[in-house]
């Protein structure tokens, strides 16, 4: 009996996870992108206005080479040990930032009103 209860609880958690994943994946993309290292905002970019280019983002722990192409952004290469940020590919969902945990680097879509402040700074 107690196993049935535990399994039921786990099944609910699993279902919530599946639903959450679908919701996250279906969140729309935006144009404004922010590149952060920990708390510190390094760049705020409007992908509609950015020319295609590749630039290096320096953090205390290493370097990530970020590529902008056709209004898309990704980490092209990095000297972090796990390379998860590279394999995540292009940033495609507002709900799923590209992160490089070893470098504490985050590339995410932001709302335009939140981004204006960052540009003004």
């Amino acid at each position, binding site marked *: 009996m107690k196993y049935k209860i*535990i399994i039921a609880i*786990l099944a609910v958690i699993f279902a919530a*996870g599946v639903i959450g994943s679908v919701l*996250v994946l279906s969140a729309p993309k935006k144009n404004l992108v922010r590149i952060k290292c*920990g708390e510190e905002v390094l760049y705020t970019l409007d992908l509609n206005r950015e020319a295609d280019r590749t630039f290096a983002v320096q953090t205390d722990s290493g370097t990530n080479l970020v590529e902008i192409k056709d209004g898309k952004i990704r980490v092209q290469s990095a000297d972090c040990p*796990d390379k*998860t940020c590279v394999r*995540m590919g292009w940033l495609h969902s507002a709900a799923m930032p590209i992160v490089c945990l070893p470098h504490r680097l985050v590339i995410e879509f932001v709302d335009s009103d939140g981004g204006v402040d960052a540009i003004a700074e």
Partner: protein
Amino acid sequence: MSVKRLARLSLLTAVALIIFIVELQVPNPFPVPGVKLGLANIITVYAVYRYRAPEVAMMVGVRIVLGSVFSGNWMALLYSACGSFLCLLGMLLLRRLIDERHLWIGSVCGALLHNTGQMAAALLVTQTPSLLLYFPFLIVSGCLAGLFTGLCAQLLLPRLKRFDRE
């Protein structure tokens, strides 16, 4: 602790470490930080049901530290240490509630707790609340990975009876 017991624990740690390193060589098809099969935890789950709590904690601690020495990923040490701590705590408590024949349930709970701990550590380190959006993926992958490692440990348990007795 007897020398025999110590030797057995070291042997298990070494096996877990080898599994860990072999798994590192296999490219991970899921590009989400923290999503991993975690095959080395087969040994952890097995040990939770066969050894005392401090012994299991020692085993896992040594494996995590040596694992990050061999993989060269020091940041991962922090995340996996937080995850493993929560996972071990939960599994050692659940050990009283869940018997050996339902070990896979404990393993799923452990995996979920592990991913929760990792998430908490990542949130603290990066200070980025949007990381929470990965959590659903971690839950799904945790359930599946925990189920797999749990079933493996379940198969392992009766086969290691002789190893336990000697």
